[in-house]
């Protein structure tokens, strides 16, 4: 579904991604772990099309489309979703309107009819119920005054409403209480199926207990250092990155 080959990217003069090779087949969930500053979020941003990163080489194909040539909105319409590590606050923008505008933009791009406010609220309330979220959050401004955990849940809600084909979850589990962690995992698991894949960036084994990944990759210094099965995450939890980094050096 997603094929990354030799991807290099920099910000200003600073190279951050130094040749990423990674394929996520349809229906699979892959985890990415790695030390702070190793380039995990950068990979997410580059996939989503953030313009302040310069792609200096390599390719990203998403279901046979050249993703690097597409605008961020075209990538979203094609089915990509990035749950931000630090979700952005939008003062003055109502949360429900924001999500409805996004959903309708994507529906429009697919030639589908738009949802009116009533239809949308019905859909949103149902998703919120499944995610044990308070419907009051729809009336607030996007992420403004939300607690850390509420912001993460709001990202998961957007994912549930937009129903992407490929989700990148950037530390969506950080800052969540134990119950919320389970809800987030359930949210991802409910989308799981042959037409859905995900890249889950995390520092913790716990999420991966609920969301058993097909593969685990270790990103360090802007490269995939090692890949393995779910047991690799457990090994890291026990031994840390030190030994692995030393071995690679």
């Amino acid at each position: 579904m997603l094929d990354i080959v030799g991807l290099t990217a920099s910000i200003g003069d600073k190279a951050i991604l130094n040749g990423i090779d990674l394929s996520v087949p349809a229906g699979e969930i892959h985890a990415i772990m790695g030390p702070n500053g190793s380039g995990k979020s950068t990979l997410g941003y580059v996939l989503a099309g953030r313009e302040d990163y310069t792609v200096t080489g390599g390719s990203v194909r998403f279901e046979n489309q050249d993703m690097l040539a597409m605008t961020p909105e075209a990538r979203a319409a094609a089915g990509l979703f990035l749950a931000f590590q630090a979700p952005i606050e939008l003062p003055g923008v109502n949360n429900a309107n924001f999500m409805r505008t996004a959903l309708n933009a994507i529906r429009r791009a697919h030639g589908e009819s738009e949802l009116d406010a009533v239809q949308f609220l019905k859909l949103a309330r149902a998703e919120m119920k499944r995610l044990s979220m308070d419907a009051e959050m729809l009336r607030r401004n996007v992420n403004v005054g939300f607690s850390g955990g509420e912001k993460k849940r709001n990202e998961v809600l957007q994912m549930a409403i937009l129903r992407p084909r490929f989700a990148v979850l950037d530390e969506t589990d950080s800052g969540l209480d134990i119950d919320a962690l389970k809800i987030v995992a359930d949210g991802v698991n409910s989308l799981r199926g042959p037409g859905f894949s995900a890249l889950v960036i995390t520092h913790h084994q716990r999420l991966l207990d609920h969301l058993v990944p097909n593969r685990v990759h270790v990103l360090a210094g802007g490269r995939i250092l090692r890949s393995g099965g779910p047991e690799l995450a457990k090994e890291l939890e026990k031994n840390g990155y030190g030994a692995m980094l030393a071995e690679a050096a």
Partner: protein
Amino acid sequence: MNAISVPEGAAGFLARFAAMQGRLPGDSTLRAAAAEAFRALGLPGASRGRRVEAWKYTTLQPLGGMSFRSAEPAGKIAIPDSPARIVFAGGRYREDLSTAVPGFACFADQPDFGELSWPDRDPMVALNTMLAEDGAILTVPAGIDAGIVHLIHAGIDGTSAHPRHMIRLGGGARLTLIETSAGSGRYLHNPVSEIHVADGAVLTHVRIQTDGTEAFHLATIYAAVAAGGTYDGFTLNIGGRTTRTEIHATLNGPGAIAHLNGAQLLTGSQHADFTSVVRHAGPKGTSRQTIKNVLAGHSRGVFQGRIEVARGAQGTDGYQMNRALLLSPDAEIDTKPELEIFADDVKCSHGATVGELDAEQLFYLRSRGIPDNEARSILVRAFLAEALDPVTNDIARGLLEDAVALWWEGQAG
């Protein structure tokens, strides 16, 4: 004084005063003094080599080259439908278009120049004092809630209007005054308003300026607030070629409150100047000012805000913020905050932000599938929605939102 010393641009107005002097209502000595002051001051920026600090960023030079007449007494104009409305067209009261509003009299019948204004110092106030033919004299007696009153001004092509308004609220009285100024063609609207808010009274004053793109709108407001009283002002400037909103608010009694908020949405080569002077004369007063500007095209926004705290005004709390969103590299904002503090127990802050749309916010929206132009529109409207936040009256808020939506449609289309 001989004719050669008349400053550029002032001659036409002075000639009109000379012609109609005998027919104007009210204190003729005051008018003659105002005419002398106007002759000496001239139009700001009109005379070469003369610069006045209070008019640092705004010139009325283009106005000087134009000639205006007084409005004819009647004529067809479109008027919004509202139950309590006082309608003026070209500076004249239009009884046929107005409704009966308790406590209202027109200036032509009961001229009242008040005591707060400075015709000897402010040229546009001198011009108004010299030429005022009519205006709204509105009195709300102590303890009365007068609800909402609409004060509507229609500009008429080729005319200059100098209405003189006087609003007095007695102790504990309440009023929501919604003032609109609109019209088409080339005209000058030069109102002076004097406002007295007595002990514990609350005036909500919402001004919506959507004058035509060739119009000049030069308004001066003087407000005096007594103990525990509130002057809650909000001005939306959308129209006009050159506009200036100059507000002088004096907080006299302990615990007086003044809000001088506003938003300016400009495009093309529009120029809008928001100038305020807040005087904390009594103790424990609160003043709040947030001005938001959205500037497109070659437009220019100005905010000059001055807070003065007198020696006895202990416990003063003053806040002032000017924000600008520049939608074009050719748009410009000028900000001049000034604090003059003579008391020691005072909390005063001011700030300014100038920027383009936030790149992270824009990316967040686009990453959700929202196209770039739609995402930009959402962020501008969000900035504007926040600008309207201080206005809590539903009817006023609705009118402001409509005006803003219409402006934004014009930008997008």
